[in-house]
């Protein structure tokens, strides 16, 4: 077992750097699954605690994979896995004013409908779709995070879009 790394995670500055780099992504990763920000925060927190406790066993380069794996496993085991409507935080100043041009109104309305549609996706479809669309991750990167094949990611992505297309006529 390697205990002495060039940049050990047990060094606080190294750990803090990983924390700054990965926290938000990890948080979103769980958030896309369940849509509950408090659960996402808890699991991200727990994953970093695990990382800190195991700092001597995890190489810095593997920290990200470690974090996402822990978070994923925690999520699977958590009681909150029931389907919950994903709701994006509505803090973008969405309330349209009287002067808002009609094309903007339509656009805002579309975004709101889109959020509803996305919350109707399956958990697998949604996480892949949002990791790609919002976080801008490549399929290969998503595959690594989820420990699945890139092909599986692409299939989920394809299905997600088809489902959204269908939902578009209903919602």
């Amino acid at each position: 077992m390697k205990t002495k790394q060039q940049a050990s995670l047990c060094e606080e500055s190294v750990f803090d750097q990983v924390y700054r780099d990965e926290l938000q992504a990890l948080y979103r990763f769980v958030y896309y699954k369940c849509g509950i920000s408090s659960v996402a925060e808890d699991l991200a927190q727990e994953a970093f605690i695990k990382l800190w406790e195991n700092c001597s066993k995890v190489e810095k380069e593997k920290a990200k994979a470690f974090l996402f794996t822990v978070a994923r496993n925690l999520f699977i085991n958590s009681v909150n896995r029931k389907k919950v409507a994903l709701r994006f935080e509505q803090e973008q100043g969405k309330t349209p004013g009287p002067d808002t041009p009609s094309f903007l109104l339509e656009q805002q309305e579309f975004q709101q409908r889109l959020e509803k549609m996305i919350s109707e996706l399956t958990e697998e479809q949604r996480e892949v779709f949002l990791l790609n669309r919002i976080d801008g991750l490549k399929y290969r990167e998503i595959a690594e995070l989820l420990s699945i094949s890139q092909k599986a990611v692409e299939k989920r992505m394809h299905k997600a879009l088809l489902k959204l297309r269908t939902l578009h006529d209903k919602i």
Partner: protein
Amino acid sequence: MKNDLFNDETFLARWLAQELTEAELEQFQQHPDFALYKQLAEGAQKLPKPQLKNEGVLLQKIKAKANKSSNLAPLKNTSKTKPIVSRRLIMGILGAAAAALLLFSYFNWMTPGSTTYESAIAEQKSITLPDGSSVLLNANSEIVVPANNFKNNREVRLNGEAFFSVEEGNTFSVLTDNGIVTVLGTTFSVYSRDQQASISCKSGSVSVQNNAGKSVTLKAGDRVHIINNRLGKLTKVNPDGIADWDSGVSNFESEYLSIVSQAIENQFGIKINLPDQLREERYTGSFLHQDMETALRMVFDPMNLKYRKVDEKQWEVVE
């Protein structure tokens, strides 16, 4: 055409990744739903990015918890999510409490801290406090009432004379330059000017503390003085006579002449020069509020004291 496109299980994924061949793309662009797919995919890119806000705080929590659990079970790696949730709840409650506190202090800073009520010479003023207690201010007096949270912190500052009718509740305090009067729910009168105070309890009981920290408890009909910071002995008075100055008469029962004389000053806006050796003479009786010269006569004549006018605003008492 539609089937050709979508029988491929990854077609749309490859389209988004710009991995379609030119021929495939061209074909897709002819598709009736192409514009809609584009709108969906691009719309999703514009969705707000969920953000965790308290990064720094969370890092501290992580380290605190990690250190704690590694102390308890070194290198052991058990996964527990439940305690986190409950701890989280507690943190939430603490957070809410902290926020409430912050908000509370914010309001304290933002609003005027207190309201001051003043009565002019010869004026009496009735005030109802936020807790339902009432105060009757006698002439030329001033009372300061905090604007916030009065029900939980019943504290008023008095300079002058007032009669209190206190609703039951938390401790009610009257702060004066001469001492503090504390009650639970009662009626009492406080007179405090310059270096002298007279406190009478009409019903219930009150506690009186001078600035030196000495205190005494008054029951109905008890009166105590604080003269030059010295807490006097309890004296008995008729409870019915306490603070009936609201009826146009001021009544005194073996009261210090200095206090009686001061009461006249404040009622009529004059100055009475009272020789020092007469200050502790006791007066029992009353004076009417209607007329100054009648009042002077009612107080000083029975005591065989002579008085004369120095000028419009000043009178002098001589033996």
